[in-house]
């Protein structure tokens, strides 16, 4: 405990461990905001019958900034699978006629993916737009006498139906579940940076091993039974705890802000790879007697592996099995 205190006491320790992630967050956050700005909800409206009424409606709906509507002639479910669109609405033939007759059922078929999130909002909006037309034309029908309405009561009752707490507006509803295994979500390469950060922490802590060696602390301890080993184990414990705390912090932040798409097994692999890195660097410190050489070797390794991950990510290299000697590939593949 005394040693732990002495290791963590140093101001630079706290700065490195706490300051860097903050710095990284500050750098990353604007990107995150940008991407969320860009993610308007993309929705396809499919009209196989080329109705001008539908075109007009899509134009009206497109005024909404949070949605990006596309009018298409053909249903293409692949787009849902790829996540290009959040939902697809297929309109029936003679939509305008049906609306003008006050029909509220089965005007549209709604296709959504199990991962679709905010398309429900659009559904409400679409429904309200259509309802507006439906109610208006109903009113017009009544006033112009197109509908054979006898009494004031009957008209009143008819109007009431639009305010009942039942679904105003019904549509066919289909959830699209992909049979294909989920397409590899390859946008998780930033996890390699998280690993690189953990390596940085380990390398930073390795300076104590060198300090203790150069100051003769290890020699002094060597005359006690298992003295040297004990100090080494203390060091490993401190670094391990720091790594695990950092990981827990990262998982928390990532789950909160969803910076990188990761599932639980990937968190596990990240922990495993970090612990492996710790063991490697620890063992290296026995072989390499200069701290600077150790820093150089680990930096080169880290930079090369992150660069390779990026090159593979950008399809400039194809993944080969031997790349697995670069630990970050365990994380992204």
């Amino acid at each position, binding site marked *: 405990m*005394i*040693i732990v*205190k*002495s*290791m963590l*006491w*140093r101001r630079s320790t706290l700065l490195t461990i706490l300051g860097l992630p903050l710095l990284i967050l500050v750098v990353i956050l604007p990107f995150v905001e940008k991407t969320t700005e860009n993610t308007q909800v993309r929705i396809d409206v499919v009209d196989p019958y080329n109705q001008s009424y539908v075109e007009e409606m899509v134009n009206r709906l497109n005024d909404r900034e949070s949605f990006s509507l596309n009018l298409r002639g053909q249903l293409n479910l692949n787009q849902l699978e790829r996540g290009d669109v959040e939902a697809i609405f297929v309109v029936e033939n003679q939509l305008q006629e049906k609306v003008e007759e006050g029909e509220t059922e089965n005007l549209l078929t709604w296709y959504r993916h199990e991962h679709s999130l905010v398309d429900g909002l659009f559904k409400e909006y679409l429904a309200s737009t259509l309802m507006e037309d439906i109610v208006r034309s109903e009113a017009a029908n009544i006033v112009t006498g197109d509908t054979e309405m006898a009494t004031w009561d009957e008209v009143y009752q008819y109007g009431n139906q639009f305010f009942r707490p039942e679904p105003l507006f019904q549509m066919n509803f289909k959830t699209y579940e992909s049979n294909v295994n989920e397409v590899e979500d390859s946008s998780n390469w930033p996890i390699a940076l998280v690993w690189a950060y953990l390596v940085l922490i380990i390398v930073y802590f390795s300076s104590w091993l060198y*300090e203790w060696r*150069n*100051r*003769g*602390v290890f*020699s*002094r*301890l*060597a*005359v*006690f039974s298992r*003295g040297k080993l*004990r100090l080494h184990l203390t060091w490993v414990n401190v670094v391990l705890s720091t790594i695990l705390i950092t990981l827990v912090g990262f998982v928390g932040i990532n789950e909160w802000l969803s910076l990188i798409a990761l599932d639980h097994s990937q968190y596990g692999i990240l922990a495993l790879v970090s612990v492996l890195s710790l063991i490697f660097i620890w063992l290296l410190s026995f072989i390499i007697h200069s701290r600077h050489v150790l820093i150089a070797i680990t930096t080169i390794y880290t930079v090369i592996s992150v660069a390779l991950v990026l090159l593979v990510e950008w399809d400039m290299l194809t993944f080969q099995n031997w790349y697995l000697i670069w630990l970050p590939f365990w994380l992204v593949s």
Partner: protein
Amino acid sequence: MLVLNNVTYKRKKNELIKNISGEINQGDCISLFGPNGAGKSTLLNLMAGLETPSSGTCENKSQEKITIGYVPQQLALFEHMTVRDHLTYYQKMTKQTNQHYVNEMIDVLGLKDILDYQVQTLSGGMARKLNLAVGLIHEPQLILLDEAFVGVDLATKHDMLTWLHQLNEQGSTIVLISHDWHVIEHIAQTMWVLDDGELIDRFPISQVDLKQREYSRYAGSDLRKMFALRR
């Protein structure tokens, strides 16, 4: 208690220690003497068991295992730890339960007033005291000191020598490396003179006058200069 038998130590094909034999008995106080690079620290490490001889043996001839206290040349202390933390850490590590001994050491070495000081705030002399105290905390039978008196003022030197003298009187064995005639003449009983990895001379401290005259004829050698500095 410790017997060196034709000890040779090589590193990267350099013979740092050449065929040294000798015996250290309980209660001895031996001063290793010689110019820089003579191999004194290396020999001390061999005695401490931190290194193993390339050939020859360095054996413990007594029945039970001897406890060793090793005080390295550097200030082998933890930064950002107080004097008290150091004593506590090493006391726990060595399972030293004789609190009376520890208290007495703190007393004689004058560590009492600086117990709550952090290591980096200690003056050179105070740090040397702590460096020594840490190495002696477990009442070692064999005390190995590598230039433990570098940069200490006379008062500090007095405290340290008093404590070492007391331990030696009580039966501890001491091997020390020092360039300081004060220290050597105050405490050593025997001098081992090393040069270039060889043990070239060995004599009781009572003969030091004689030896000084002898070495003054070694024209040009570092040993002559070192002996010349003795008054």
